[in-house]
């Protein structure tokens, strides 16, 4: 015989609330950790006079198309190196350019270089990589290693 158990309903509701609270706690923790990481990364980079370039990575099946943005980088100093699935980008930022772009920030004087290390989902064929620069962006075609 089926009967209505008010305590079971109460237990289920309580479990749901606790689950939701746990989700919110985890979310908040992740947000705090992210803020902490961002703060530490920025301070560490500024101490070294560096800033990390923004990068967009598109997976086109047999190759990656990677767009690296290095505004203000002196042309001949832009270097992109690959090793397996790792990519390292380095460039010197024009001093005057950095000062003009960040003129009203007190730490502007310390930013002199772009430097960023990135991990691609799969290794690429280093011999077949092609680079093109257009404006502040470097377009990289990196075939995947077969």
């Amino acid at each position, binding site marked *: 015989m089926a009967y209505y158990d008010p305590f079971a309903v109460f237990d289920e509701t309580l479990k749901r609330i606790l689950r939701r609270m746990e989700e919110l706690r985890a979310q908040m923790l992740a*947000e705090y950790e*992210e803020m902490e990481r*961002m703060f530490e990364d*920025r301070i560490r980079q500024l101490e070294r006079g560096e*800033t990390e*370039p*923004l*990068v*967009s990575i*598109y997976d086109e099946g047999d190759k990656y*198309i990677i*767009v690296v*943005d290095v*505004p*203000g980088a002196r042309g001949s100093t832009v270097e992109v190196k690959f090793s397996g699935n790792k990519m390292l980008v380095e460039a010197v*930022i024009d001093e005057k*350019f*950095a000062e*003009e*772009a*960040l003129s*009203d920030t007190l730490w502007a004087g310390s930013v002199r270089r772009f430097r960023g290390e990135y991990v691609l989902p799969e290794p690429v064929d280093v011999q077949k990589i092609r680079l093109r620069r257009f*404006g*502040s*962006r470097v*377009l990289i075609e990196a075939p995947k290693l077969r």
Partner: protein
Amino acid sequence: MIMAKPILEESIDAFNFYEYDLFRPETLMLALPDLGLVGAIAGLHLVRELKMRDVVGIDSYQALPPVAVIIEGKPKHPIRIYGSQDGRLGVVLSDVPLAPPAAIAFSVAIVKYARSRGVRNILSVTGLGNPSRYQFEKPNLYVLSNDEETAKKVSEITGAKQVPGGVLVGPYAIVLKEASRQGLVNTVLLVDSMVDIPDPEASIVAVEAISKLYGYKVDTKKLEEEADKIKLRLKELMKETKSLMARMGKGYEYRPTLMYT
């Protein structure tokens, strides 16, 4: 220097609006940090070129990080409305990207605020993250509106293509629904853009369209010349925005809708 005392102060949901001038524009443009920072850069350029002054400060001690923005030595609120000299256009700029719960609360509050101040049109300007963006120089302009006539008119004047379908995610989605509910016209200008790299070239397309729509003479040469400096200056804001966009469910924009014709 202390922050000027507002002449009017109003709380709408979790947000406080501090008015430093009785500014009542016809159109309120939302230029919030989003894909490619297209709207934010376009709004910034309009404010600078049209010599707009900040007339309203917006803040929330519950929903925003505890931030005061210092501009030319003066403390300001993290979100500000700038007013055009002819009084027709207000531009909402934000120095902080809005986290998902704040984005929803802010979107509802700004529509209520606009309605209570007699604004008739809300113009949202944003990027349409296009993975092929790097392949073309001149990005496309699209329009979406809750008012069919307005969408048609905007298309005629600016050459914008109508958005046929898709999913809109983020504050602009909430504004679109809330504006409809509250009887305001909301037009969204979208420009093909980079997703996670500031895209001033896409902002130029938006600025040109807004100039045509409102009859303002805005020089975009300067924006073209300063594009790289803007990219360097705003790259950290872009990083923060990208991280919040992912949490907001921006991924939904990259799949087809259930319904099709």
